[in-house]
């Protein structure tokens, strides 16, 4: 948890001006899923990317994992450029970056036993000895709380939470430095979600793994992150230490995202709702924004200038913290008057 603002020695992953587009067919212009994304992940750090559906958060994960072609920008792992790496390079990178995905029902091949699935990363470009593999798989499954009797069974016999544990076991079997968790706990029930979150925290404490945690759930992000990146329509709206971003959000979008989370307490939720409705003013800006702040049409602080001033850049609002908003002064003034209630 050092290097919050990036002394290079401890930087594991650097993403610079990342832009990813999707082709929408021959007659339509490509869709920019994310644009000019820059951030770093230090060793042992949990960085969360949070945003609503369609914000492009999974696209960033996909680009880092080599699942999405990068249009421009660069991704460096331990200083080495891994942008658009080919299959052979990916094989070497896989040693360092692994992933856990959202859907526990489709992330394990139904035709493979649990043991085969978890062992698979060991067999890429290598032919390990059978007993070594077996020992390693059993031990790794043990670390995620799955007994050895699961080895020969198939995914269909396991619950969502158990399958997610198996996916985690597969991702940690080669002790990667970074695990990209793409909505890894979103499909789970609350009680199981808590188990998996605790498991991820334990693994981090044991082996110093870094996480890039992609989620739409502000409460989960607030709980587990060291740093948070708030994404809206493919752009970073705000980023900084989790405690600051989640408890004293600077950007109007972050504020609205947090205000919308219903908390399990009637009195507090009532306060939050009142605060939310007081803060909610329709935006003076309408329609899609081509040139300017993408959030302007939903923003109670927006002015016509927000949509015509070109790209809104991230500006520093505190140590290791920045937000992309033209009206930060006013937003922060309002923020200090009505703090976020969790």
């Amino acid at each position, binding site marked *: 948890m050092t290097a919050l603002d990036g002394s290079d020695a401890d930087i594991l992953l650097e993403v610079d001006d990342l832009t990813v587009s999707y082709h929408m067919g021959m007659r339509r212009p490509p869709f920019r899923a994310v644009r000019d994304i820059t951030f770093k992940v230090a060793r042992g750090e949990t960085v969360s990317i949070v945003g*609503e*559906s369609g914000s492009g958060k999974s696209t960033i994960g996909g680009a880092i*994992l*080599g*699942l999405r072609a990068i249009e421009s920008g660069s991704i460096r792992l331990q200083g080495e450029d891994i942008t658009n790496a080919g299959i052979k390079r*990916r094989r070497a990178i896989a*040693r360092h*970056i*692994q992933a856990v*995905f959202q*859907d526990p029902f*489709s*992330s*394990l*091949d*139904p*035709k493979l036993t649990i*043991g*085969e699935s978890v*062992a*698979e*990363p060991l067999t*890429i*470009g290598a032919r390990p000895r*059978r007993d070594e*593999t*077996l020992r390693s798989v059993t031990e790794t499954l043990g670390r995620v709380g799955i007994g050895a009797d699961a080895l*020969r*069974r*198939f995914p269909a016999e396991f*619950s*969502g939470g*158990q399958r997610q544990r198996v996916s985690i076991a*597969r991702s940690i079997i080669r002790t990667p430095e970074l695990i990209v968790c793409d909505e890894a706990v979103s499909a789970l029930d*609350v*009680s*199981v*979600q*808590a*188990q998996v979150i*605790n498991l991820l925290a334990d693994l981090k404490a044991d082996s110093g793994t870094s996480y890039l945690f992609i989620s*739409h759930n502000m*409460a989960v992000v607030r*709980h*587990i992150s060291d740093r948070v990146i708030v994404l809206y329509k493919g752009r970073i709206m705000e980023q900084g230490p989790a405690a600051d971003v989640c*408890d004293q959000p600077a950007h109007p979008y972050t504020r609205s*995202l947090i*205000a*919308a*989370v*219903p*908390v*399990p*307490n*009637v009195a*507090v939720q009532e306060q939050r*709702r009142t605060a*939310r*409705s007081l803060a909610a003013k329709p935006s003076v800006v309408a329609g899609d924004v081509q040139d300017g702040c993408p959030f302007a049409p939903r923003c109670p602080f927006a002015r016509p200038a927000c949509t015509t001033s070109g790209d809104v850049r991230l500006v520093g609002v505190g140590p290791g913290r920045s937000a992309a908003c033209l009206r930060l002064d006013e937003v922060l003034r309002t923020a200090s008057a009505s703090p976020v209630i*969790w």
Partner: protein
Amino acid sequence: MSSPVVADAQAKERFRTARAFARNPLGVAGLAFVLITSGCVVLAAQLAPYDPKAQDYSTVLSGPISAHPLGTDQLGRDILSRLLFGGRLTLLGVFEAVAVAFLIGVVLGLIAGFAGGQVDNLISRTADIVMAIPAIVILLMIYAITSNNPHYGMLALGLLSVPGICRVTRTATLAAKSETFIDVTRVIGMGRARIIFGHVLPNIWGPIIVNTSILAALTLGIQGGLNYLNLGVTPPDPSWGGMVSEAQQSLQLQPWLIVPSGLTLALTIMAFILIADAMRDATAAAGARSERPARRRKAAQPAGPVSERTAGPAVTAPGPVDGAASALLAVRSLSVAFGGQRVVQDVNLTVDTGETLGIVGESGCGKTVTASAILGSLGRTARVSGDVSFLGQNLLGVGRKARAQVRGKGIAYVSQDPMVALDPCFSVGSHLGEVVGRHDGLRAGARRARVSELLTMVGLPNPDDVAKKFPHELSGGMAQRVLIALALAGRPKLLIADEITTALDVTIQAEILDLLRSLRDETGMAMILITHDLGVVADICDRAAVMYAGQVVETAAAATVFLAPAHPYTQALIAANPIVAERGRPLASIPGSVPPPAQWPASCHFADRCLRVEPVCRSGPVAMSQAAGPGQTARCVLLNAGAEAFPVGLERPAKEGP
């Protein structure tokens, strides 16, 4: 697939599809027929009683006799022998054609599906062109050029059949490629060939085999026709199609002659079709098991005998339903069973006019089944017992018509997935218009006005524009609003909303909850909100019923549930929420997961996961009993065991922001 653990795999699971196939008698019969026929044909030299070309003019057109069990033809040749030897050419030809189509089609389909882009374009367009070629013209040319060689014709037919197999493989590959486990293989650095042969192909065999089997049937038919025209076979060499042709020439002298060859051809074609059918069913059955659990359980097997008496907590008195007489909805001792398996047990709920009740719990706890039982939409396999009274009328006792009367006008329902609930062929306006027409009987103009009014009620600006839109043009939030408008069309007194905000972003969820709140205030309707999110309950519900493993374990006013939860499950559920936890500290998780209905004990269902379990918890069914708060009841034997029984939830009051 070269993982060393492979050898350990249990064959039982791996060959699930094969086992499902083996359970289909028609499929097995088809496969047996093809195998036996092929075996006989291969062993023709040993089995055949005569030389297939040996003529015997003493017994022409004999019909079945002991020396010739299937009779003889016009030249006195033994039909059985000709059938056996003729099958060689016939089945070999089918094999050649199908093998060519299969090998090339599967490989091209895999490449097209997996590579995508320009490669896919090239392969798919070429396949389209090949499909447009008139096969019969090509075949006639080939037979002419190769002086009636039986093999070239069938190989050409195989090539012409490649596009069919290629397309099926491509489609299946595309579907398999979108599975997350394929992404995972790429993340771990697996090579393309191993992904395709280790992960894609094993998951798409089903449709490929189905189509290959159908192709075999088609090829046999086409080949029979060609041989009938003496293409690809030169008399006196026997072939099944050729024998039909010969039989036809003497049809008037000996009608029997057409039977052996015609029937063999027909039966073999049928056998291939049966194999395809059984294979398709087997693939579907095997796939169904590995799919995610359906939200709503459908009982596959016929309902077994179910005791109509409520089991489980038999001690429950009609009980803790206070004020039930005046309630809008009163559910008493509701139990639901599928196939003898009870999935909802002894549920007691009341909803007063204008009240909002939250039913909260994790998946698999019976929330949706309870709602469906109230609506009477469970289907015939469900055994429902107990009492659901709405405005004093017992809904479980009345017939389908009376039920339908209540649905929509009395009780309306909004489901989780708006996109599934809306028919993609109809506009929002026609969806609403139909329902408005049924409830209000309005015509054209008035109906449009009412539709517009409903869309305005659910907060959609420009209702007339929205009415013209089709479901695919709506965002998730808009679609959910449309569904709510549909539910409001009958001016219901009770709205049941089943996880309606689960699939939405938090900001949209907040808007929908605000909408429900304002609709409730405007119309005075009561609501039942089914959710797994305690935050939603805190936001909008007056009272909450917490369900665990088929039972209501706690009911209380919403404020009480959060401030002084009585049941250990409620406490644990609140404590497990990351909002409540302190940052950097482990979450208070509940060990294990919700057990499936078959593993529910007769005693406390939560005992196995409960941190405070005691021997008494496992001694027998637990009834709902009064807890500390006003109107608070809980299903826990330790309820009155002392103040130290409630640590978890109470310890964590909501924290204020800095």
